[in-house]
């Protein structure tokens, strides 16, 4: 089965072709506007401000994935129907509806968050460092799976009991983790997008240098809050260089970046481990744009290892395995929408191409 997948929920425009053969997913094409090398045929470099102009990108990308004009070889069309920005979502949804209708192929509506979760079905099991006996083929997450989804717009803990069955356990009450990264990067004068920049600068810094708050880390629930941390960084910067924030350089910036990153990582890991304790999952899935953060990957992996060290697999508590997406699939992309779409298509969960509408608040559960 081969699916054409379209994602336009936020900043990226992306189209992919993904296939499922004998239980194995394969990405045949996956092209995203920010990476696309179609500038020449588009008539020059697409200006930075057009990054969110999905309408300008979508046809060049469709040409680039090179599907037959009559849809031959494609079995279904999948599209992100929400959550996201309505004008952005609409571009993808309308294209998907038109193609499904014109080609007479079934249409699948995918939730963007579901796509992020399924991105790990495209990557291999993360063997703990040192272990090199990688299992045959690809190990798939087992259920129930606890999903920590962290991106610019989302910070959510979701329990997935089976394919397509989700329960929202907790989420941010104010800012998303990725939003905090971007805003703190701005405060430090680092370029957008902030996440990778902070991590890069943080490599030179001392994560213990400044004791930034870890909001709600001790509360019993599994909700998050990052507005206070963002504000603490601003207040700190005002206090050390009240006249000009630009004066802060080198080590000082690196220390702020490292200490801030540590506060975010500590909070995300602590809340995830609390949810592990409450729900006893068989796997943990880390995904979304912030899952590209290596410090977060390592810290979560370490926390899971140390919690289950000494527990044999035939004990009461089965060791929990951590799944993370390939770094190339952490950001928004259509390949993950294709995987989620193939799973829904396999269950026969199709929508009517005449009535599908983009839903900015689409819920998983």
């Amino acid at each position, binding site marked *: 089965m081969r699916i054409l997948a379209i994602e336009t929920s936020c900043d990226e425009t992306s189209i992919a072709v993904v296939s499922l053969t004998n239980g194995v997913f394969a990405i045949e094409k996956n092209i995203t506007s920010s990476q696309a090398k179609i500038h020449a045929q588009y008539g020059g470099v697409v200006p930075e401000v057009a990054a*969110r102009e999905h309408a300008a990108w979508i046809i060049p990308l469709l040409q680039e994935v090179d599907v037959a004009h009559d849809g031959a070889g494609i079995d279904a069309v999948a599209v992100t129907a929400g959550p996201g*920005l309505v004008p952005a979502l609409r571009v993808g949804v309308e294209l998907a509806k038109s193609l499904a209708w014109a080609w007479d192929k079934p249409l699948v509506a995918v939730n963007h968050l579901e796509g992020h979760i399924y991105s790990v079905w495209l990557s291999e099991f993360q063997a703990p460092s040192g272990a090199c006996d990688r299992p045959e083929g690809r190990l798939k997450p087992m259920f129930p799976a606890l999903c920590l989804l962290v991106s610019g717009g989302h910070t959510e803990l979701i329990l997935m009991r089976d394919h397509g069955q989700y329960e929202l356990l907790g*989420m941010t009450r104010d*800012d998303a983790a990725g*939003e905090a990264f971007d*805003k703190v990067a*701005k*405060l430090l004068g680092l370029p957008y997008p902030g996440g990778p920049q902070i991590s890069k600068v943080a490599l030179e810094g001392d994560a213990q240098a400044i004791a930034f708050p870890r909001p709600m880390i001790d509360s019993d629930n599994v909700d998050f809050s990052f507005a206070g941390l963002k504000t603490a960084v*601003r*207040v700190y910067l005002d206090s050390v260089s009240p006249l000009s924030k630009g004066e802060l350089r080198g080590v000082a910036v690196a220390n702020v970046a490292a200490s801030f990153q540590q506060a975010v990582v500590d909070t995300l890991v602590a809340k995830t481990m609390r949810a592990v304790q409450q729900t006893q999952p068989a796997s943990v899935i880390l995904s979304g744009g912030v899952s590209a953060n290596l410090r977060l990957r390592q810290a979560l992996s370490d926390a899971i290892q140390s919690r289950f060290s000494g527990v044999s697999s035939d004990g009461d508590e089965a060791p929990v395995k951590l799944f993370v997406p390939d770094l190339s699939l952490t950001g928004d992309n259509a390949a993950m929408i294709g995987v989620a779409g193939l799973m829904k298509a396999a269950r026969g969960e199709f929508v009517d191409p005449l009535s599908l509408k983009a839903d900015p608040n689409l819920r998983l559960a």
Partner: protein
Amino acid sequence: MRYESHNEEETKKIAADFVRDLQGGEVVFLSGELGSGKTTFVRGIAEALGFHEPVRSPSFTIVNRYPVENVNIKQILHVDFYRIDDASEIPPLALEEEIGQPDTVTCIEWPEKAPSGMFVATHQIICHGGDPYVFTITSLLPQREGFPRLL
């Protein structure tokens, strides 16, 4: 009017007092540096108007909508232009259809990112996140004496 606030609760009280003067159709600009309490203030407005779900930062979604049940006010439109870096990104949001509708209160964070004149404020709130936090509220409406309060 200038209000000082020492914690989130005080800010929400200031917001609740502010809400008493609203009739629907207002467009409130909230300005101030990162973490100066703009979203927190809007959370106070939303709670005072009877919205009891979490009010999250709209910096990524750009627009959040909160349905409420009041005599005149049925919706809060929570807008945040933080991530807008070019004026051409605003028209596709089709906000002008909703902003200023008589049943809607619109709150805009980072309004200065939109070209001046694109949206017209009825109220301006300058937020300052110091010790204490300070909120300076200015009504840009002509004084309308004896205008009935319908809330």
